[in-house]
């Protein structure tokens, strides 16, 4: 479960006003709003990359507001994917597992499982240079899911993809949701994406955040 209680973030002159929301375990929530409202800032605050000035961030009831990103166990896919330029695709999937010092067999089994689900088995030995947008997206998603996080944050992950790849990714994200039951907060501008994936939809405006039916987002 993701819970925000009066979360306020300040960055220079930009202020993200007091935000409160609750996303239940296993729910797929979509966050929408016009550009520059602070959607990315909010995701970064949840995963610990941005300091929260006021309020609390709770993950499964535990206050993680002052925890380091490493301790929050949240999978995060940023808008630009931020893949590691010196790592192969396989090394991306192994990265979080190796940090947790899991046995070699477990790492191998998990990376095999992920590559099957994401359809990137044929890419494992490749460098990330030259991957298509869809392939890079799958690698970033696999990296974020590798350590079986209970919360997944996606920041406009499909915005750079073409129409057919986007539909493939909708199917993939639905499959991930069904198989892992991960609680997801997905930032997007696309109504079709929200309609296709969301259990709930939030709208971030200048005066705060509101929950709206998906059809009334724009």
């Amino acid at each position, binding site marked *: 479960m993701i819970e925000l209680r009066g979360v306020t973030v300040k960055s220079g002159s930009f202020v993200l006003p007091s935000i409160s929301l609750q996303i239940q375990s296993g729910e797929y929530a979509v966050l929408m709003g016009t550009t520059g409202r602070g959607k990315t800032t909010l995701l970064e605050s949840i995963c610990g*990359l941005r300091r929260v000035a006021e309020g609390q961030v709770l993950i499964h009831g535990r206050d993680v507001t002052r925890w380091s*990103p490493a301790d929050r166990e949240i999978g995060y896919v*940023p808008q*630009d994917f931020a893949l590691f330029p*010196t790592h192969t695709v396989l090394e991306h999937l192994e990265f979080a597992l190796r*940090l947790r010092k899991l046995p070699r067999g477990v790492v191998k089994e998990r990376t095999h499982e992920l590559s099957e689900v994401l359809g990137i088995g044929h890419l494992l030995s490749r460098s990330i240079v030259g991957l298509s947008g869809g392939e890079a997206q799958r690698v970033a998603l696999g990296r974020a899911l590798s350590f079986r996080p209970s919360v997944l944050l996606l920041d406009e992950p499909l915005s750079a993809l073409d129409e057919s790849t986007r539909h493939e990714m909708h199917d993939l994200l639905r499959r991930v949701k069904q198989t892992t039951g991960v609680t997801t907060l997905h930032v997007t501008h696309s109504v079709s994406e929200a309609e296709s994936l969301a259990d709930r939809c939030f709208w971030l405006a200048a005066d705060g955040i509101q929950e709206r039916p998906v059809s009334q987002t724009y």
Partner: protein
Amino acid sequence: MAASNPWRSRRTSDTLFFLVMGGISASFILLIVLLLVADVMFTSPSEFYRALAKPEIRAALQLTLFSCTVAAILSVWVGTPLGYLLSRYSFRGRWVIDTLVDIPIVLPPLVLGLSLLILFHQPIAGWQLESALRDGLGFPVTYRWPAVVLAQFSVACAFSVRTMRVTFDQMNPRAEEVARTLGCTRGQAFWQIALPQASRGLVTAFTIAWARALGEFGPIMVFAGTTRMRTEVLSTSVFLELSIGNLDAAVAVSLLMVMLAVVVLVVLRVLGTGLAS
């Protein structure tokens, strides 16, 4: 009236552009080439080999290779964390550190040497850095080879910091941030994500530091002296040979330095750009 041909006009403009830009650029390249040609014409192969055969020059060559390499390694060792901190973090007083780093670059070389000499010999409440190192650790610095390395390091490190900072500035910090969400500490994100990406910057920083150390003269003369067979490096050899009126040997050593610099720059550039593979 017939309209002027825009295609021809643009082509003339482009030609003029390349002539002006190329002409200005060529003047500098020509100057360097002429300097080297003049040196080569001034000396002869026999004079060059005779200079190289002198034990003083051989000792200076060995000390130069050793001190430049140590100074460059130290410069990269210090420049990498400092460049990373300056690039990635905003903190109170960052501009002060930024300015301090540049001081060895803008300071007149003799002043830097003099400052090092004063630092090591200034008594502070009955304590002196040089005495403490010499008597406490058995490691005297002034007028010995460590002074050569320290003098070279003081300037080379400033260039190394600048290079590493630009390297990290050009790298997207997002990958390190994502690594932290995956379970990395800041240190692990630095070692496993940032540093491997900065490999070319490291090679460049090493190259620049090495080349800068090779050309260092003023601070070495003041802080390490120019004692033959002890603190003499190639840059001071040129000065010593000139001071005793041996212009042929001075030019021969100069050419040796040019060759050394070219070899190191080419080898490291090939390594840095991956052309070797």
